[in-house]
């Protein structure tokens, strides 16, 4: 056409719909459930077979999950430590090269933007893995510092190998050198292959990181060793169960990442999420420090707590009452834990509940008895320890199972 108009079909096509990760064809073959979800724009399995099988494989055997959709950012340069230390609440000077650190970062009001893991490859070389897209924020945070921020979300892929037999699988796949890794250690085992002893399960487990185009090979290499160790591929539903057992919080579920929340007052501070131990006030300035200092003095507005809930009915979304009358909060994540054999939950309570006040708390759960709804108030107790703890998670070298 010569009239200067542009035809839509002539414009370079933008992919429509979800994108496949390199191992999608493998997953599609295995999947009997065909339950797929959207993880940061990628097709990701919610369940491949059944959630129960997958859950028990995490706790008793080992499991493989494609974590490539995670957002990954490389931060390098002479000021990398200073720049990241100004961004996150914990003191990264104490995180040595070859270590991984769980970290939170806040806006200027001390409200959590996201949480994630920081991998320190070398003195001036970090990678941040997180759930939310963080490129713009990192560029803002990097302004004025001698660093380079590269979005590696689509160039670095990863597999999460978790469960008691995970080390045995690694060994069988020729990666036995990972045996010396302590929790949160990070090592380059082969050119282009970094292995960290990290995960979201609270159990023994590893994450393996490779260039995007090498993921299939890595998958096949581990998958070949699955039989004797009972390894299964899993989806994210089973993972969600174990992370609640381990007491990990999930963005958009247990807290609202403040940059994505449009309503006022939806943000929460690390202190309110129960992570005051990761707020290192003595390290110098970091984003939100002044606001968080104030809150340390005045106290949190909310407390995110672990609850042991009476009865068997998972209490997802249940309202929490004090003395059965006053509404003081709600459950953010709740499941029946097959391992703990308890009805467990994470819940947000309005302070002082969950802090100084923990007695006489009740959860309101609805039970549908074949078409008839019943409302029950069940007692809840605040727990300080994670619901799942096993010393095999920390033993180094890992024990063979």
């Amino acid at each position, binding site marked *: 056409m010569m009239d200067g108009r542009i035809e839509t079909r002539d414009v370079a096509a933008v992919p429509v719909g979800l994108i496949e990760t390199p191992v999608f064809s493998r997953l599609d073959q295995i999947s009997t459930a065909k339950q797929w979800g959207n993880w940061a724009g990628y097709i990701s399995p919610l369940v491949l077979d059944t959630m129960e099988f997958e859950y028990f494989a995490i706790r008793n055997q080992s499991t493989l999950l494609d974590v490539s959709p995670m957002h990954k950012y490389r931060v390098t340069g002479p000021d990398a430590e200073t720049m990241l230390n100004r961004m996150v609440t914990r003191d990264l000077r104490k995180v040595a090269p070859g270590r991984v650190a769980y970290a939170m970062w806040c*806006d200027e009001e001390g409200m959590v933007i996201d949480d994630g893991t920081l991998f320190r490859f070398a003195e001036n070389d970090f990678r941040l893995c997180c759930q939310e897209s963080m490129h713009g924020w990192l560029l803002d945070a990097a*302004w004025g510092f001698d660093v380079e921020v590269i979005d590696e979300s689509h160039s670095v892929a990863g597999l999460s190998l978790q469960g008691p037999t995970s080390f045995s699988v690694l060994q069988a796949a020729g990666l036995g050198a990972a045996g010396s890794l302590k929790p949160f250690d990070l090592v380059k085992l082969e050119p282009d292959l970094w292995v960290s002893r990290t995960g979201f399960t609270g159990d023994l487990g590893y994450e393996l990181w490779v260039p995007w185009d090498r993921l299939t090979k890595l998958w096949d290499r581990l998958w070949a060793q699955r039989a004797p160790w009972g390894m299964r591929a899993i989806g994210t539903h089973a993972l969600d169960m174990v992370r609640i057992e381990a007491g990990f919080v999930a963005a958009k579920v247990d807290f609202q990442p403040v940059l994505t929340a449009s309503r006022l007052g939806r943000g929460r501070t690390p202190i309110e999420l129960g992570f005051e131990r990761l707020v290192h006030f003595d390290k110098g*300035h970091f984003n*939100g420090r002044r606001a968080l200092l104030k809150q340390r003095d005045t106290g949190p507005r909310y407390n995110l707590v672990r609850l042991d809930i009476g009865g068997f009915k998972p209490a997802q979304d249940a309202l929490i009452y004090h003395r059965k009358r006053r509404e003081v909060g709600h459950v953010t994540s709740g499941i029946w834990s097959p391992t703990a054999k308890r009805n467990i939950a994470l819940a947000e309570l309005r302070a002082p509940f969950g802090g100084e006040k923990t007695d006489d708390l009740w959860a309101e759960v609805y039970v549908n008895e074949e078409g008839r709804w019943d409302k029950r108030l069940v007692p809840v107790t605040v727990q300080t320890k994670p619901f799942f703890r096993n010393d095999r998670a920390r033993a180094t070298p890992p024990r063979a199972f």
Partner: protein
Amino acid sequence: MNARFDVIVIGAGHNGLAAAEALAKRGKSVCVVEQSDAVGGMACDRLAHLLYNPAPSGVETREIDTVSLSPEGAHVLIRRGEARFTSGKPHPDAAAYQTLYRRLVRYAGLLHQLAEAPPPGLEQGVTSLAGLRELSRLAKLGVGVKRLGKAEMREFLRILLTNAYDLLLDEMPDGPLPGALAADAVRGAFSGPRSPGTVLSLMYRLRHGGGVFLPAGGMGAVAGAYAEGARRAGAEVRCGLGVTRVIVEGDKVAGVLLSDGGRLDASAVLSSVGPMQTMRMAGIAEFDIEAVRRARKLRAKGSTAKLNLRLGGVPEFTGLSAAQVKARLLVAPSVAGVERSFNPAKYGDLPKQPVLEMVLTDGTGPSTLSVIAGHVPETSWTTDRRESFTASVVETIERFAPGFGSLVEEADLLTPEDISAMTGAPGGHWHHAEMGLDQMLTTRPTVGMARYRFGVAGLYLCGASAHPGGDVTGAPGRNSAAQVLADGVA
């Protein structure tokens, strides 16, 4: 041992000096550190020339008329609300002009109390004494607005956020008369009369009653009086020494490092440079990411140039008496013309018909015509460009004063680039930060900085970028000092 002061002020611009005087008067030991060899900053003979507000004590001022030049020779003589032709004939729009002008001055008076103190804010809530005081100030503005009467109140609120173009041309036909107000609304700003917020900036300029004053001895004398005031109150003023770093320890200001390698200790530092420059001096890592982003994105695009023309004789303007030549002379032939002069600036080009404010100054000798030209580009001033711009200004004047060009013996052009290099003002901007609706009052210079403090305890802004903005008023400096005293940091 380093020398120790309660307060250090970075920059002996008139605002830094005003802050120093206010603090020293309250018994604080104050040291003003100025990088250049002279006090005054932009308030110097080569740059600023007129006052729109009372001068500091010790400076005589003379109120002068404004003459808005007409290409057809129908020049308008204006003093406050009165307008007539320079020939003495009545102006057909004099009544409409007077009504509008008086209304603007009345409204501007309401803003005056807001300008003379830190901007209102209810950050402390109303449960504290300070919070209640804030509320009462806001209430006073509310009462002031109410007192106008219902119709006037509606009018005030209607025009407050509109643009000068619509406001002026709703009341009268276009020409040099409304052109003068349009030029006053945008002088120093990167905006045209059609830009939103220009009614507010016009009222800001009229908030002292709308008079235009020529200081005896020039702006240098005004700066000298500010310095004298500071010294008399007990402040020390050191010139020829720049601050290179603000020392921060434990999230508190501890002092400054000087360009000669020395160090001064203090528990409060007031900075008359822009927020970003101040952040750099203290270290970007000391500030929150959002605060740095806002400082980065601050609009401060300098758009005003200064041309000092040394003349070999007194110029004659067609149709003006010898006395009228000594008025403030404006080349702003119409509101539309002022808007058109802004258009090329958007693309970094020179105005084709520059809008000028000229005055034969007393300060630099009677034979100097001090010319302020608006809507020029901030950067890329090549020699060619400088010369062609100077020529176009002289040519413009020549149109009203035949033979003017041959009187010019020397032309001293200061572009925004030059002004920035001379004073450190961000972008060489008249107000250090654009006076846009989004950068005024409680959001001046940006969100979270309206209380003069930002981030690090003891660090304050005290220059034109802070509320209420630029011009030679001393208000930002005094307000900042008041905030320092209220915070009790020094």
